[in-house]
């Protein structure tokens, strides 16, 4: 990314963004208060929400939901309408931000061309009830008992693969609420975050939520750029960003692995939860991957199958980012997944100075998102502070663009080093960390205990 491109990205307001988010903020504040006993500010916020989607297909259901809620009648379907309206606002915000990003970077993006499959007929009513109770109570009223009521709901959803997405979301959300309970004593509530998590969960808990889109097989050479790691107490996802060269051209893709875990499995130990030596080997050894008939979902996600991939030649991610990434066509996300928090566009930023936790290029500041440096890799804030080159994900949150580092080139004790989040995918390469990890018995102890106690 050049200084002029960064300048364009940061220049001026994104048209329509603030008014849309203001309306969503009103709903978020009402959710903090609780939808069970609306006061005047909450009524006004809901009315504004209904007006904001007034010209869309959501007009009728949202208008009706707001009228009913204002009259004191609560039902799951009214809350689903509110969650839908909120999601539409953030979807529009996502589109405006992505358009700004594509314009600034000169990035080509394919149109969405997928179709969802039929909804899975799985029981979701219990999840909807709990989410309704949560919204009626409001964040300020959340206590340990209300959170505990989600445990049986999550347990039932976890064992059914088709509802795992919802289960993983509710488990992370519930753990967060439990850690904060009683919420009434909190000074500042993260109302946008909890509004996001609640409305995602409400939509995923609808019987009409479509099943996963159909994949198509792709073959070619995958050049990894880096890996983004997401984690809460009971789940971890590693999402590899890369560029796929195939007969159909060059495009950006992702490959994700998800594993269930428990809170005591943390740090480099999480890599050992994945049985994917080919993909992890490519990350650890900086190699390309040769794919043969790997399923590709319309949103640009490879549905990873180890048997459809083999390790290829060495491939330096910085070379890929410099030479191949600019030629790649980016992919539009699935329509229902559009949200600013999901924006994660790979970029290469070079020849910057780091000042106060930001990369500065020609006077333009792009702050590093240091919170997102994963605990399972060698990338530290100190390395980022000493860096001059970075492959990262452009993100947007709380009104600003951020750069989440996936790999950096830095100078440590006058020696050049390259460090990436996936360097320890086959185990820590740092002798001190490796020694400490060898004593980290979490995965083996818990697997042994599970083997012995769950079947006795």
């Amino acid at each position, binding site marked *: 990314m050049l200084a002029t491109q960064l300048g364009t990205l940061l220049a001026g307001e994104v048209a329509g963004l603030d008014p849309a988010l203001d309306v969503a903020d009103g709903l978020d504040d009402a959710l903090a208060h609780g939808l069970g006993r609306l006061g005047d500010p909450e009524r006004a916020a809901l009315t504004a929400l209904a007006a904001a989607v007034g010209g869309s297909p959501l007009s009728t259901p949202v208008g009706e939901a707001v009228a009913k809620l204002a009259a004191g009648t609560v039902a799951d379907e009214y809350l689903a309408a509110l969650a839908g309206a909120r999601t539409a606002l953030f979807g529009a915000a996502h589109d405006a931000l992505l358009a700004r990003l594509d314009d600034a970077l000169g990035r080509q993006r394919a149109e969405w061309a997928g179709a969802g499959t039929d909804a899975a007929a799985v029981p979701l009513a219990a999840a909807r009830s709990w989410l309704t109770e949560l919204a009626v109570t409001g964040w300020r009223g959340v206590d340990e008992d209300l959170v505990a009521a989600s445990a049986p709901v999550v347990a039932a959803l976890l064992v059914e*693969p088709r509802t795992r997405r919802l289960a993983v979301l509710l488990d992370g959300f519930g753990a967060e609420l439990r850690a904060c309970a009683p919420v009434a004593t909190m000074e500042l509530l993260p109302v946008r*975050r909890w509004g996001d*998590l609640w409305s995602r969960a409400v939509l*995923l808990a609808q019987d009409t939520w479509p099943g996963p889109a159909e994949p198509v097989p792709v073959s070619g050479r995958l050049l990894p750029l880096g890996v983004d790691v997401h984690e809460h107490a009971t789940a971890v996802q590693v999402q590899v960003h890369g560029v796929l060269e195939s007969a159909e051209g060059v495009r950006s893709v992702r490959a994700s692995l998800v594993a269930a875990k428990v809170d005591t499995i943390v740090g480099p*130990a999480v890599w050992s939860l994945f049985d994917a030596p080919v993909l992890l080997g490519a990350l650890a050894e900086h190699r390309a991957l040769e794919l043969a008939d790997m399923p590709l979902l319309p949103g640009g996600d490879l549905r990873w199958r180890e048997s459809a991939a083999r390790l290829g030649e060495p491939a330096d991610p910085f070379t890929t980012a410099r030479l191949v990434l600019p030629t790649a066509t980016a992919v539009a996300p699935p329509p229902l997944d559009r949200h600013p928090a999901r924006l994660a566009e790979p970029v290469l930023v070079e020849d910057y100075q780091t000042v106060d936790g930001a990369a500065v290029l020609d006077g333009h500041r792009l702050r590093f998102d240091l*919170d997102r440096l994963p*605990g399972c890799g060698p990338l530290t804030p100190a390395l980022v502070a000493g860096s001059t080159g970075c492959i990262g994900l452009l993100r947007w949150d709380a009104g600003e663009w951020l750069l*989440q580092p996936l790999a950096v080139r830095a100078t440590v004790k006058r020696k050049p080093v390259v460090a990436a989040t996936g360097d320890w995918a086959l185990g820590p390469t740092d002798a001190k960390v490796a020694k400490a990890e060898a004593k980290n018995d979490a995965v083996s102890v818990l697997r042994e*205990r599970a083997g012995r106690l*769950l079947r006795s």
Partner: protein
Amino acid sequence: MDETEPIAVGGQTGADPVRRSGAVLVRPVPVRKLAKVPFVELADGRVQGVVSSGSDIARVYVSSVTAVGHGLSCSTNNNRPCGALHGPYPCKHLRLLLSEATLQYGLPRVARYLRVEVEPDGDLESALDPHHEPTPAATVFSRFLRHLSYLELPEVAEPMPELHWFGGTRAVD
């Protein structure tokens, strides 16, 4: 700031935590060895968990301290009382449980859960006013089994976009 606590304000990049989708509220727990105490939690009004038997690999002890009144309980998962728990004196299982709870959640959070005041370098056990109060092992043991069952869930091949909200995973060092 106490780093083991949920923090309402995001970490280093916390511009506006109220309007921040990626606000970080829960940090990962510190690494601890699990061989002796594979499971400990602050839940159901108790510091409770499971302690592996030193002599029999198939046996575990279920130990707990109630937050209110500091009732001590320790028995095998088959409800056989622990022979080492007498009156108000914690057995070695309970001692291990409390020290591992302190490692996992931090002394301030465990002390607050047990409603006692302990100096940062103080001793948790001596701050308790305990008595023997046997509780059935089944509830805690089944929570432990549920905890373990996460490791046996079948893999899912679909990406999970919702996990983008859980990207703030760096332990504060």
